[in-house]
């Protein structure tokens, strides 16, 4: 560790100076962001007629846009295009400075283009958003402990459930693809950095730019329409909906650009010999997840643009009185919505399959089928969106076709199980925490998957749609499968980013608390749903009391599990047991480079001769 720091110090002279742009960091980002927000709020006095009922909306929208542009300027994101326009190209010294050369811990607070720094920044950001969403989850569950409303009425409760939903969706989208799609994937490809390093920094800081207006929504009256913000109530609800919409459009920019970056890195920057059939499975998952994100996200931006226009410009996309229809929103939202949940699932599955091979000391079972499974899920996910709308009555005759495509998706999903189970089959199971989280994933994902099949059948969906059954289904997939995968990935790759192990005992305690918590909370939620409790109710009828009490107890158990892992990360960052460069004796490239990973990853780009799963095979036996 110390050897590399001395090396960097000698080059310190080369990257000093460079004027105003070098001093921009997260702090100046916030300052300029706030300036932009204030300007945006007060400028409209001159342009818009302040009698109209949409005046407050117009000011809020422009203020939120002011924040985003101000933050981009303050963090240094707009420097690139501005310098390109005027022809002031960056010198090599500038690029090294931007890559965080010789800047120590400061670079984590700056617009840094080193994919490893962006990876750690994504990890911290995902944990912060997960924490915020988690607090809201606990408040919701605490309020639902008995039929009436307690410390929060339906109006505030609606804001909590809306923000809980969106914060968790955003944090899970970036929970695996962010930290490990950025830190690990380029090294696994044998590349020195992402295809577009500055675009990579833009993606990270744009999520930060989106998170601020998203959280502000809670403090300016909140929203009443859930994270799915169905129209036309999204047009009726308070001004919080404007900051929510701008936050989503900003997040869409970040994810679309990240999709472009990921796909380009994997397709064009693999080192010699790293053909597509030798790519680690996690890199394949990042590729498919990135491409699916690039396809799905523009729909979300269009939908939110229409919501903003309806609220503040007097258009009528969604108001039935003047030709609009709520079904337009539902179609546009779910065209993004379902591919998005697979953008969340696939990277987590990729990380878990890597864990399966390393901790069973066995090659990945049926490599090509695994990729086929993931690609099948991604492809089909584009054709299934209207199964969320079976009971909206928008097109009853389309019920059959969407039932077909939705039930077909269970075949590629079945392949994911086959590959996971096939990999641990007759393996030497090394009982470390990552493998235990994988076991948790398999157990939970089977329940999540099967209950999905019930909902794909219209007669059952006519009973189950909009009830707690659906909530339990997608929590089994999001919490039980994706979050378990994300935490397993942290326990697996933590030694690579910090040079220290996460503590095994805390890991076990955290797992068992989370696993038992998930079963208690969401099995009881299945029963609430089967008994007919609708979702998003702040107060419910007495017949649902028992299952809700059990769910609330389970929620506190999950909270305990999450906090134990958080404590584990905080404690182990400095005082964890040193792990060395390849503690798990894994064969993928990121473990074959030193820890901490040098700036350009490889002294010399490696030549690859076989896939990274040659466990138990003689040298080079397998092409």
């Amino acid at each position: 560790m110390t050897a590399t720091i001395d090396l960097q110090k000698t080059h310190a002279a080369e990257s000093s100076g460079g004027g105003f742009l070098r001093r921009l960091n997260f702090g100046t980002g916030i300052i300029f962001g706030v300036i932009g927000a204030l300007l945006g709020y007060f400028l409209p006095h001159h342009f818009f007629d302040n009698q109209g009922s949409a005046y407050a909306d117009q000011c809020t929208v422009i203020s939120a846009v002011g924040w985003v542009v101000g933050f981009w300027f303050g963090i240094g994101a707009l420097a690139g295009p501005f310098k390109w326009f005027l022809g002031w190209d960056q010198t090599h010294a500038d690029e090294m400075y931007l890559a965080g050369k010789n800047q120590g811990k400061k670079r984590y607070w700056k617009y840094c283009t080193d994919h490893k720094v962006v990876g750690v920044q994504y990890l911290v950001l995902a944990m912060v958003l997960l924490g915020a969403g988690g607090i809201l989850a606990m408040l919701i569950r605490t309020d639902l402990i008995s039929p009436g409303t307690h410390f929060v009425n339906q109006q505030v409760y609606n804001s909590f459930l809306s923000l809980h939903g969106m914060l968790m969706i955003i944090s899970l989208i970036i929970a695996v693809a962010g930290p490990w799609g950025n830190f690990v994937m380029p090294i696994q490809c044998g590349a020195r950095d992402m295809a577009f390093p500055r675009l990579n920094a833009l993606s990270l800081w744009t999520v930060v730019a989106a998170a601020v207006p998203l959280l502000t929504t809670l403090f300016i009256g909140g929203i009443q329409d859930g994270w799915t913000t169905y129209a036309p109530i999204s047009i009726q609800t308070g001004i919080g909906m404007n900051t929510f919409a701008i936050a989503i459009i900003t997040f869409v920019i970040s994810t679309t650009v990240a999709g472009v970056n990921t796909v380009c890195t994997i397709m064009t920057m693999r080192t010699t010999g790293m053909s597509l059939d030798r790519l680690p499975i996690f890199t394949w998952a990042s590729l498919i997840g990135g491409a699916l994100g690039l396809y799905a996200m523009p729909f979300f931006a269009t939908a939110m643009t229409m919501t903003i226009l309806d609220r503040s410009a007097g258009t009528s996309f969604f108001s039935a009185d003047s030709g609009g229809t709520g079904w337009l929103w539902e179609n546009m939202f779910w065209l993004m919505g379902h591919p998005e949940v697979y953008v969340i699932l696939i990277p987590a599955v990729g990380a878990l399959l890597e864990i399966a091979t390393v901790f069973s000391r066995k090659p990945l079972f049926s490599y090509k089928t695994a990729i086929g499974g993931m690609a099948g899920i991604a492809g089909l996910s584009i054709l299934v969106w209207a199964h969320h709308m079976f009971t909206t009555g928008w097109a009853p005759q389309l019920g059959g076709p969407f039932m077909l495509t939705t039930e077909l998706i269970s075949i590629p999903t079945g392949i994911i199980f086959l590959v996971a189970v096939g990999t641990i089959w007759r393996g030497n199971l090394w009982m470390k925490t990552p493998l235990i989280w994988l076991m948790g994933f398999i157990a939970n994902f089977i329940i999540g998957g099967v209950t999905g099949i019930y909902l794909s059948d219209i007669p059952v969906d006519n009973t189950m749609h909009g009830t707690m059954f659906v909530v339990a289904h997608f929590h089994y997939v999001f919490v039980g499968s994706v979050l378990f995968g994300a935490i397993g990935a942290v326990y697996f790759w933590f030694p690579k980013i910090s040079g220290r192990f996460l503590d095994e005992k805390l890991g076990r305690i955290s797992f068992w608390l989370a696993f038992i918590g998930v079963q208690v909370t969401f099995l009881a939620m299945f029963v609430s749903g089967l008994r007919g409790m609708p979702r998003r109710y702040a107060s419910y009828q007495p017949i649902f009391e028992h299952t809700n009490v059990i769910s609330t107890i389970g929620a506190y158990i999950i909270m305990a599990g999450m906090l134990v892992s958080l404590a584990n990360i905080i404690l182990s960052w400095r005082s964890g047991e040193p792990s060395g460069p390849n503690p798990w004796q894994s064969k993928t490239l990121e473990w074959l480079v030193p820890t901490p990973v040098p700036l350009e990853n490889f002294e010399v780009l490696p030549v690859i001769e076989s896939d990274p799963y040659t466990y138990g095979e003689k040298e080079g036996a397998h092409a």
Partner: protein
Amino acid sequence: MKYGRALLTSLLATILGAVVIAGIAVALAHLQPHQNPYSGVVGTTSETVNGQQVSVKHVALSLATYPDSLFTGQPHGANGGAHPDWVSYNHDNLVVPANSIVTITLDQYDSGGALNNSFFGQVRGTLGGTATFSTWGYAGCDPSTFVCTSTAKQSLADNGVKSTLTSNQWPYYSVGHTFTLRSTGSAPALLVSVPLPAVYGDKDGAFYGPQTTPNAIGGTYPIQHTTVTFSFKVKGPGVYQWNCEYPCGVKTGNFGEAMSTYGYMSGTLTVK
């Protein structure tokens, strides 16, 4: 890390988390937008239960609906709170004893128009199924269509005539607000819905008949306003929700802002 220390760390982390959640919950409980409870005048009255006269608790509540939030005795603070221009009831946290008869006298100071659902033109759930509407008529206004042809200036010379009517409905095309109370599922089933007749308004939206002097935001209140009186019986303890079902807000269905916010056109009735 030895097991003991790991267990201690886990316990500490969980307790810390629980404390944070409890802290936020308590803070939120205090930030509840509910105004202080209003229980009106409690007395007793008699009720014939299968032939005999039985004395039962009686509560007299006096509610009011205003065209903005600047009326006296304000629940929204001196300058009308965050939204002085929002329509509002004068209370939102009603508390009545269990198994009592509640009589509400409601002063309605706002103009109105056509309900978007004639269901709410009907008086429902009151004792005897009726309510007593006392309204003011004017020469310049046609009582059958509730439209005033002459302008505001002529209205000053036009002194109103008060009339009282006990009926089980009010024409759906001239309603100012409604008082619609129902159970929230955690209380015995109940529905009380009474239309509140609109005060006459002339073609360009001003009130007809004598009005108070304009307040801070230029709004006035009609002196000759309508009053509605009705009674209903509440059963066991529970929380009931009530709100106005006339689209007097803005945005979608004119049910936005004031209509969708506690403390303005929506509140709770807690039976203790």
